[in-house]
């Protein structure tokens, strides 16, 4: 049995009894067997004293029960850790930030409260998954498209509160930015609604996100200032058509103008998330493996050597897939305009028309539809990347930890970060990682993300190596100003320490808020580096 820090067994048992009164005895989980279900399946500390395991879990079904749970927690100083669907895998899953916390499992709060087709919004509770919301919309034949992250079992609320992202137009794939209005149980058990939700007789809660006065919604994302119990989201009207097209450019140096041209389309709202690729880099996983090994045999190659390599390989250096959503006339015209602009800017650019389809696709075609998230269809196919496959057949990992850092949206930054990653792996004596053909993630349209994925195991020795690698990469990238946007609890203190301008003034400001809003420190201690005063480490 694990107890919360500084809480006696008698007080803990008394609190559990009051939780049972609040939510019903069935929905308080305190046996070792039941509490183990809240372990983070992808923990990088699995089975070690540092593993962040819960002391118990409580699963309220309505907001009044959440308020009661919070009041009980205040009385007994019990740390709580709310989860929505608990599927934030690689970022902590359903396990708490701090060992001994009581998980507040909001999966039972799973009502889709409203979907307005004409005003294009949804209002949902925490336990609603992307699958749930998708099926609700589809069954009613509403002309709305979701923007979904790769794993569809997560919740719109939880994903947006951890700054998750999807694939369609920039206005929708930044999931926190596309929310409108939230309801929050504050650490003292009070209930607030943000934006127009604070106006008792308003019918515009999901129409206008600011209301008046300071906008506090951001305080409830990646933080510990309350438990969000309702959240609104703007949805994309179902486009009449979808069209994709692929651009390839011949030379390594062509990435710079290609990024500019693609960003031009993105910033005008003309394309969904562009998917960069490198035919030369991709060939290194197959027929071009030996040639790539030869290129890299003496370390990071010169620009001239890279360009000569591309020429000899007779493959384009770069590709980018563009995705257009809208009426057929406009998607075809936009693709034509993209071809004209890029063809004029980059000599030797070539273009391949991709898939055209009218939307929504027929229900019977869904199972075989590739790249579902591009069409707002939730799926779990991304897990193929980390499940047992041909490359890891004899020793598949148990999970993974993602390390993505934000870099400027330009080719030179991408090349430099690839070189730093390559050298970091080399310093650690690990197999070569990367080459001069990196491709960026463009979930957030105004920046690039790049990074690496580290395997996690149910084996402490292997996890120790993964942690060392993860920390080394994070520290090395931070030396260049490349820092992550999201990480698992095991690395949140380290991540937040990189946001250190003016002697960590941002974190110190957040700590002042924490002390004022949650003086007993009961909500998610340590979430993204924000600790209650009595647990705060002394900074040098």
């Amino acid at each position, binding site marked *: 049995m694990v107890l919360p820090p500084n809480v006696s067994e008698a007080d803990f048992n008394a609190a559990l009894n009051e939780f049972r009164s609040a939510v019903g005895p069935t*929905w308080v*989980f305190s046996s070792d067997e*039941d509490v*183990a*279900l*809240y*372990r983070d*399946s*992808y923990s990088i500390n699995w089975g070690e004293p540092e593993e962040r395991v819960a002391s118990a879990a409580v*699963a309220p079904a309505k907001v009044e029960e959440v308020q009661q749970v919070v009041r009980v927690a205040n009385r007994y100083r019990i740390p709580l850790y709310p989860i929505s*669907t*608990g*599927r934030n*895998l690689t970022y902590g*899953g*359903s396990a708490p930030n701090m060992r001994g916390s009581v998980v507040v*499992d909001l*999966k*039972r709060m799973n009502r889709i409260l409203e979907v307005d087709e004409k005003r294009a919004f949804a209002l949902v509770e925490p*336990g609603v998954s992307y*699958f749930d919301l998708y099926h609700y919309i589809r069954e009613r034949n509403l002309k709305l498209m979701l923007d979904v992250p790769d794993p*569809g*079992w997560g919740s719109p609320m939880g994903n947006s509160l951890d700054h998750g992202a999807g694939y369609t137009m920039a206005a929708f794939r930044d999931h926190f930015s596309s929310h409108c209005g939230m309801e929050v149980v504050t650490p003292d058990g009070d209930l607030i609604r943000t934006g127009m939700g604070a106006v008792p007789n308003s019918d515009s809660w999901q129409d206008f996100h600011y209301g008046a006065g300071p906008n506090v919604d951001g305080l409830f994302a990646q933080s510990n200032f309350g438990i969000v119990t309702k959240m609104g989201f703007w949805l994309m009207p179902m486009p009449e058509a979808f069209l994709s097209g692929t651009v390839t450019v011949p030379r390594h140096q062509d990435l710079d103008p290609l990024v500019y041209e693609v960003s031009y389309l993105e910033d005008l709202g003309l394309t969904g998330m562009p998917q960069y690729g490198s035919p030369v880099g991709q060939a290194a996983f197959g027929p071009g493996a030996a040639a790539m090994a030869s290129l890299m045999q003496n370390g990071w190659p010169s620009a001239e050597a890279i360009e000569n390599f591309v020429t000899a390989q007779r493959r384009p250096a770069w590709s980018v897939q563009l995705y257009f959503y809208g009426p057929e006339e406009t998607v075809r015209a936009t693709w034509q305009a993209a071809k004209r602009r890029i063809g004029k800017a980059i000599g030797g650019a070539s273009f391949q028309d991709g898939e055209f389809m009218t939307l929504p696709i027929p229900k019977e075609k869904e*199972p*075989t*539809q*590739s*790249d*579902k998230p591009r069409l707002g269809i939730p*799926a*779990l*196919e*991304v*897990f*193929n*990347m*980390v*499940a*047992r*496959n*041909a490359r890891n*057949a004899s020793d*598949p*990992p*148990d*999970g*993974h930890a993602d390390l993505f850092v934000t870099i400027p949206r330009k080719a030179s930054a991408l090349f430099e970060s690839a070189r730093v990653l390559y050298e970091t792996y080399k310093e650690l004596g690990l197999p070569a990682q990367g080459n001069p053909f990196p491709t960026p993630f463009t979930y957030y349209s105004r920046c690039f993300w790049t990074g690496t994925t580290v395997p996690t195991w149910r084996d402490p020795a292997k996890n120790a190596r993964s942690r060392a690698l993860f920390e080394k990469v994070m520290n090395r990238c931070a030396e260049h100003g490349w820092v992550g946007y999201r990480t698992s609890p095991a690395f949140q203190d380290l991540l937040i320490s990189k946001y250190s301008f003016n002697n960590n003034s941002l974190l110190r400001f957040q700590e002042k808020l924490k002390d004022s809003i949650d003086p007993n420190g009961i909500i998610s201690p340590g979430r993204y580096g924000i600790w209650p005063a009595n647990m705060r480490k002394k900074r040098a």
Partner: protein
Amino acid sequence: MRQILLLLLAVEFGNYLLAQTPSETNGKAVFDKWCAPCHGAVAPKNVMFGTGALAGTSALAVKYKGKLPAVLEERTDLTPVMIKSVVRHGLFGMPITRKTEISDAELEDVVAYLTRSRKK
């Protein structure tokens, strides 16, 4: 009056027994919702993953190399203990499933569905 009461009691008891009996039909519904997105039979052709785009099905294909079906619903060797253990403990990339997601009763239904061929 007494006979009506007895009849009602009998109907209630029948309903109770039915409620306690794992349901293959509900088991399939739970499987379709929670398991099929990774362990289904129909896989899309995917740009990144080729034709084996369902993580669970393709992982089992790699593991068993044809000695056992990769599609769980085609297996005849699955046991209740095995199914419950994997659902509640996870296995490799497959995470733990909590009781607020699949209740113990629903898990019994899934077991009934996936072991249906063993009873025939």
